[in-house]
């Protein structure tokens, strides 16, 4: 019954095209800037058309970095980011699914207490307890290590809640059948619950990977050794490391490389991403 207004639709398309242009613009600019020789940036306003030095700039950042300013090659940083993101993702998923299993499928003393302990993690993000957390990690000798980069971040209340909610919807009969057949709890978990949770695990994987990859404050605090720099924090070193104006063509090439993996994850797994995003918040 609602009227279909041709001009209205045209207007909506115009608004959206303008909107998409604004949203895409910063990344377009970064892509363009990363293809120009350094001289371009001395001469004034940045270019809006691609230059000719793209290949050169990207190989420079990946293999050499900016050795004078103390930033290592980007190749290593990309690898560090990948290892950290994967460790955080897999860590979060495994410890959360196990604790949700315990909370839903067992009755034991202090069950509610443990649930609240896990809940507390939501209320205490790293950002609000920077110094003492750093001290704990330093005392444990975990500075400049992959363990230090990932383990303190893998506790997850949201993942635990999501798995708990999902387990509550799994039919009781499955477990009864498993018990009649003589399966113990771990066998039930491995052969029935885990295969049923695959979609949820995949959706959370997408969200957690992006979370892990984009960590900034934490790696900044606990890595002093360039060996362990991750790419997102490495960019900051490139921007401020050195007295002169940043080498924009190299910085922007790094920016593109740092943003590419998580963006690709979203673009290729959009359905899972939307599912993960909307469900972790419910």
């Amino acid at each position: 019954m609602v009227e279909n207004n041709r001009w209205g639709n045209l207007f909506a398309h115009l608004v959206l095209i303008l909107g998409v242009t604004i949203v895409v613009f910063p990344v377009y600019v970064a892509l363009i800037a990363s293809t120009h020789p350094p001289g371009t940036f001395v001469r004034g306003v940045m270019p809006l058309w691609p230059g000719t030095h793209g290949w050169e700039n990207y190989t420079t950042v990946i293999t050499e970095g900016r050795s004078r300013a103390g930033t290592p090659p980007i190749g290593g940083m990309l690898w560090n980011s990948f290892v950290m993101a994967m460790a955080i993702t897999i860590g979060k998923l495994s410890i959360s699914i196990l604790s949700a299993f315990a909370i839903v499928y067992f009755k034991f003393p202090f069950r509610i207490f443990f649930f609240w302990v896990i809940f507390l993690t939501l209320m205490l993000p790293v950002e609000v307890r920077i110094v003492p957390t750093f001290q704990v990690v330093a005392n444990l000798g975990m500075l400049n290590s992959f363990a230090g980069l990932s383990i303190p971040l893998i506790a997850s209340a949201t993942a635990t809640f999501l798995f708990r909610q999902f387990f509550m919807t799994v039919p009781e009969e499955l477990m009864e059948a498993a018990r009649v057949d003589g399966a113990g709890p771990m066998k039930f978990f491995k052969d029935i619950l885990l295969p049923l949770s695959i979609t949820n695990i995949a959706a959370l994987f997408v969200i957690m990977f992006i979370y892990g990859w984009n960590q900034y404050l934490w790696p900044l605090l606990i890595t002093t050794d360039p060996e362990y720099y991750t790419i997102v924090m490495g960019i900051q070193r490139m921007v401020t490391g050195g007295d002169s104006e940043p080498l924009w063509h190299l910085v922007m090439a790094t920016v593109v490389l740092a943003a590419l993996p998580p963006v690709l994850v979203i673009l290729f797994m959009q359905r899972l991403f939307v599912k993960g995003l909307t469900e972790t918040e419910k």
Partner: protein
Amino acid sequence: MQTKRMTFSSRWLPYALLAPQVIITLIFFIWPSYQALLQSVYRQGDAFGIRPPTFIWFQNFQALFADSLYLNSLKVTFIFSVGTTFLSMSVALLFAVMVNRMIRSRDGYTTLLVWPYAVAPAIAGVLWWFIFNPTLGILPYMLDMLGYDWNHRRSGNDAMIMIIIASAWKQISYNFLFFLAGLQSVPHSLIEAAAIDGASRFKRFWTIVFPLLSPITFFLMVVNIVYAMFDTFGVIHATTEGGPAQATNILVYKVYRDGFVNLNIGSSAAQSVILMSIVIILTVIQFRYIERRVNY
């Protein structure tokens, strides 16, 4: 809180399953928070152990609230969070309403609008910092033609606008997805009924659709404030570093500066405690809202 009707019985297994999560929480969450609480009511001892730490009640807090720098940081954080939340939510709502009209192009636009979620706040900061660069950037060049001399290195207002835009840009995708989901669950019959009664598109939106979206709007407001207050550290640290003249020194950045650069542990701990209370209040509000929505 429920379990399954029928449960497994084991004396130790549930504890073993919970152990990794609980141990990590205790070591890296609960213990440091307890330390922050403790440090916030002590004056630090000196490095040589001559003067031991002394218990000083709430002096660290009193000092904070008497400190004009801290009060300034509170004000800056407030402006920044409100600005970021408002900008990114209103733009996202506009996009969602427009995309919701589309049939064939809906998925295409959605794909083009969601990916900034994946860009780290620090990278978002650097991108806009480049665009706003006073000598190179395209926007200052255009503003100059309009007669405005943009310089976020000197002008606190310019710097604030820059970090608000950078932070809001990244958050549009998130708000957009939630608004779009909300719009799709608005019953079509209501809109048709209003259309038959002769309500214009504009009127239908403000009197029917928008009120029905209010639970989502409220939820997004809380999430966006949390984002602006705690997740934007990277935006500030990679670009303005709190400057010029404290104009973008938000609370989270100040905790970091005071703790790590200025090594003022007591004050940093007191600030941490204040931030923790803010997060706790916001989390409680968020969860109460979710409970209410479930009970509809």
